């Protein structure tokens, strides 16, 4: 399981994952279409801002914000918790353990392989967003653009690792889908996915800054639409990657302990 052989396997794994996505493209499209939440929230918040802007948000700001939300959600999605829960229950995880490759690497590549197809959907939405709201909200500072790209990677990593941590708990409980539901509910509310973080009461905003959820989706979206300046962007990026590191350590610890309990029933 040397690093070199892992790296050599990556392109092939990615190709296999991508081919799988193309094979199930109809299913994939349904998943994308099911991302209606940003559009519902877009309609709601536009109605709220109909007569007067809310904070700094007028109707066009909400359009930009929630279309960006849709795009970022497409690019940072992961579904490992359900997959792990399923593979533990059916015992198919055993097959992955036999390969000379860490299962987390193969999961990560499979999840990443969905991104090219998701981009195909995200791109037209980006064009529509630009046509509707103009380019004036986009960051002017190239450093912020770099921070944005890194923050997308960070957002995906937090989503993936949180999925991995909760999914691995299935090794103890048999199924961790319910726990994932709780996580998802918190994520929806506190990530900026339903409500832009700025519109929360100040007391709550402090808590949101500390919690990981905002760094999954709200942070990249804000970089894209709010004109965050360089210093603040870098500070938030640091916080995001601190969470990435924390989750990485947690997944390592849980995975190692959990595998000792793995019985591969049914496999």
């Amino acid at each position, binding site marked *: 399981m040397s690093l070199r052989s892992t790296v050599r396997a990556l392109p092939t794994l990615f190709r296999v994952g991508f081919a799988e996505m193309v094979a199930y493209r*109809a*299913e994939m499209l349904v998943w994308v*279409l*099911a991302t209606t939440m940003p559009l*519902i929230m877009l309609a*709601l*918040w536009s*109605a*709220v801002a109909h007569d007067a802007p809310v904070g700094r948000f007028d109707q066009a700001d909400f359009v930009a914000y929630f279309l960006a939300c849709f795009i970022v959600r497409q690019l940072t999605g992961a579904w490992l918790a359900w997959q792990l829960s399923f593979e533990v229950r059916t015992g198919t995880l055993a097959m992955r353990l036999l390969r000379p490759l860490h299962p987390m690497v193969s999961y990560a590549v499979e999840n990443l392989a969905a991104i090219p197809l998701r981009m195909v959907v995200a791109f037209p939405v980006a064009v529509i967003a630009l046509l509707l709201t103009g380019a004036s909200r986009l960051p002017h500072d190239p450093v912020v653009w770099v921070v944005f790209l890194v923050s997308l990677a960070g957002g995906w990593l937090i989503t993936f690792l949180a999925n991995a941590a909760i999914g691995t708990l299935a090794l103890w409980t048999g199924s961790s889908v319910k726990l994932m539901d709780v996580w998802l509910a918190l994520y929806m509310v506190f990530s900026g996915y339903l*409500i832009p973080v700025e519109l929360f009461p100040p007391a709550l905003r402090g808590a949101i800054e500390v919690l990981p959820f905002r760094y999954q989706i709200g942070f990249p979206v804000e970089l894209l639409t709010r004109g965050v300046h360089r210093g603040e962007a870098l500070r938030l990026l640091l916080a995001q990657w601190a969470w990435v590191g924390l989750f990485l350590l947690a997944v390592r610890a849980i995975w190692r302990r959990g595998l000792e309990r793995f019985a591969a029933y049914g496999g």
Partner: protein
Amino acid sequence: MSGIGRYWRLFRVQVRSSVLLGLQYRADFVLDGVVSLFWTLTALVPLFTVFHLRQSVAGWTFEEALLVTGWFTLLEAILEGAINPSLTAVVEHIRKGTLDFVLLKPADAQFLVSTARFEPWRSTNVVTALVLWIVAFVRMGRLPSAWGSAAAVLLLLTATALLYSLWILTVSAAFYVVKIDNLTNLFNSIFDAARWPVEVFRGVMRWVFTFIIPLALMTTFPAQAMLGRLPLTALAWSVVGAGVFGWLARRVWLSSIAHYTSASS
């Protein structure tokens, strides 16, 4: 008449068997209840935030919008407890090819699959819905109008019929797409829009949510009825609409069944 009697007996048998099945998984009941309560409460956060910032949105005050959310929560409970379990089972049947056994039985297949499984213990949200309504009316300092409440009960029936018809239409798609767990997801995520009064949506979206996917008829209209401001014509149209959707779902179901070519054999 004997036909109806026979189906009533079948219905009772089906309910009894699903209750017995459910009693085996008692621990799930508590966990499901807690998780769904948690979801409902977090789903209220946007409502609170919006009305914290504004007195009224699209002509709805906080209390009135709370009624809509109550109706949404009630229908969600019906969906979770009575509709989803059965129809998830159909999809399993289609995928595995075991639908053949259902089709061979000497009773209507749509009836059999629709009553195959009830999970009333998933319906803890019925209580949440009642609490939301009570809170809304107490805050308004009034009672629901008598005529309106009667209309609301009628609308509960039409809304359930609509929900069921939409579900049958979605499931009919499973005959073509097979992998349904994401179709369920698609249905739920569209149904999520019913959480808000339909006036929130503009233009095409409002039109779609009234006529194509009649979410307005399911949550906005009943809430308006409770407030005593639903026009009689809207009530009449809801009944007609539910009838039309029921008929359409039946036609689509029959033609999907005709297309079914058993997966395994």
